[in-house]
């Protein structure tokens, strides 16, 4: 009932038809160094970045974390956009570090896109105190326009752009890293 009422009221009141704009050609400086721009912006958002020349070295970095005594949930062996055969642990207290493969990196803001297939359990990337995202350098795009060309929203039930660790400035505008989500955020580039 309310639906009909609302839609009627809109159709009665809406302003004269305005056309959608022609999408503009955005970002003229396409020849920028995408990798460097991405690293700068990611670090600006509070991320640590590590730059490797192979996926093997990424794996070695992760192994080292386990050796250092962290409990690591490692989903980096997943193929992107596909479910992992085993269900990861999601014990609220015990997930020190979660490693997830990123699908897209955005140079203009340091954000990385992951969807439900990549994270397996929706709460994992938020719950852990240290989120690690593994990103292939060729997957860095210049800006959000390019990123959304590659994002497939309908491919999974949930997806998120993440830029750095969780943060707040709600007390006197003082930036505090580690609000409700991760306190540390690392991007492993290869």
């Amino acid at each position, binding site marked *: 009932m309310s639906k009909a009422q609302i*839609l009627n009221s809109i159709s009665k009141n809406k*302003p004269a038809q305005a*056309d959608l704009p022609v999408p503009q050609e955005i970002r003229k400086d396409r020849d920028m160094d995408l990798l460097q721009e991405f690293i700068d912006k990611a670090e600006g958002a509070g991320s640590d970045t590590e730059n490797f020349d192979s996926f093997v070295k990424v794996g070695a970095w992760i192994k080292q974390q386990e050796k250092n005594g962290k409990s690591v949930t490692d989903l980096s062996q997943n193929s992107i956009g596909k479910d992992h055969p085993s269900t990861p642990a999601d014990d609220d207290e015990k997930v020190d570090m979660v490693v997830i493969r990123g699908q897209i990196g955005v140079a*203009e803001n340091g954000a990385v896109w992951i969807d439900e297939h990549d994270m397996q359990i929706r709460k994992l990337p938020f719950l852990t105190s240290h989120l690690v995202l593994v990103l292939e350098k060729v997957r860095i795009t210049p800006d*959000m326009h390019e990123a959304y060309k590659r994002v497939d929203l309908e491919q999974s039930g949930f997806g998120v752009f993440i830029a750095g660790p969780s943060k*707040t400035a709600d*007390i006197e505008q003082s930036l505090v890293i580690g609000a*409700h989500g991760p306190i540390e955020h690392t991007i492993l580039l290869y």
Partner: protein
Amino acid sequence: MKHAQAAKEFLSNGPRTEWHSQALWYVRQKRDIQKDEIGDWEDLREQASAIKEHTLSNLDQYLEEFETKAVQNGIRVHWAANAEEHNNIVLEILQKADVRKLVKSKSMLTEECHMNPFLMEKGIDVIESDLGERIIQFADQDPSHIVLPAIHLKKEEVGKLFERKLDTESGNYDPQYLTGAARKHLREHFVTAEVAMTGVNFAIAESGGFAVCTNEGNADMGVHHASIHIASMGIEKVIPRKEHLAVFLRLLARSATGQPITTYTSHFQKPAEGREIHLIIVDNGRSEHLGKDKFWRALKCIRCGACLNTCPVYRLSGGHSYGYTIPGPIGSILTPRVDLKQYSDLPFASSLCGSCTDVCPVKIEIHEQLYQWRQEVYEQKQLSGKKKLGLRFMGRILARPRLYHRSGKFARKALKITPRFLVYNRLNPWGRSRDMPAPPKQSFQEWYRENRNKS
């Protein structure tokens, strides 16, 4: 209380007012840096404005398209014509699930609907999980800013509040420490949440999903633990396509807090296995506003708060002085349609400097609408007595050139010799905190007559 009176109280503590003003100006400066860093800011604003105008002019179709897709995705869609319907829908969902606690993230719409007091009266424990919102919930206040709800509070005040509510160390006012205490406290609520609520930043018609932007991760911590997610959106939140998200997301955080993007931009498409997403589409006066020729463009607003941060009146009077959920310039053009009589003074709470219009990422001509609302207030006979008297008096003089010249001549002489107490009295509220300008020796016309033949 009227804005001018509340502002006067806010201004009574000079150093504190200055501190408040500077805190907001700092955010405005961060915004400027971000805007200058990308080369196509003005193009983006044009795009955003045009996309919103297109959407609003086809809003019924886009809402229906969105609903159809959302239902296909397994999202349960509810429609609420007003605040009361909205609040009852939320209550019913909670009651049906037999849940007495609601963990919620920030939503200006639920504030507008006064949902929290309604639910609390029905025995529901409402937990605000955004740090700023939790602080003001502890303090039993309303948010004073749409993005920075506790911007009016000092860390010492937050510390003392936390000492009482969260048993933190006495005298420890370090924001890092206090945030840590809130993190621990709210985590207990997140992991036990059964029903969680969020707002909606953008709903995408073509795919039937919606996006929520946060920095703290509280929205996601709540909804991914809970088995029921309730999301509320105003009818104006829908956008046509995914590609339009890029335009708005590039503008939103840069305008709001001076970040290139918020930490989390979460896209909810379908409920997780065995869980529910309820989406409430709320009108509450918006569709009627859409029919106001001079004012419908205010519905383009994406709630970034940039116009608040830049406004000299907002910075020096504080959000609470406006007496409505959404304060500042954008609030002053949204509230008169809610109740013109009650909020008739808000369009006057502005210097009409136009800074709000300059910073608005969706190009709402805010200061022009403020000016238009002033006409509306006059036409609907809601102008206060003193203002009406003053305007009528000035109107008469300005409409009669000879009277105007004579009055000017008289005033220039009179102001020089009139004792101070006669100029600054109860009939001159303007002069209460301001000096009249020094009277010039002659008017421009007199000067021109004298000088026009000199070359």
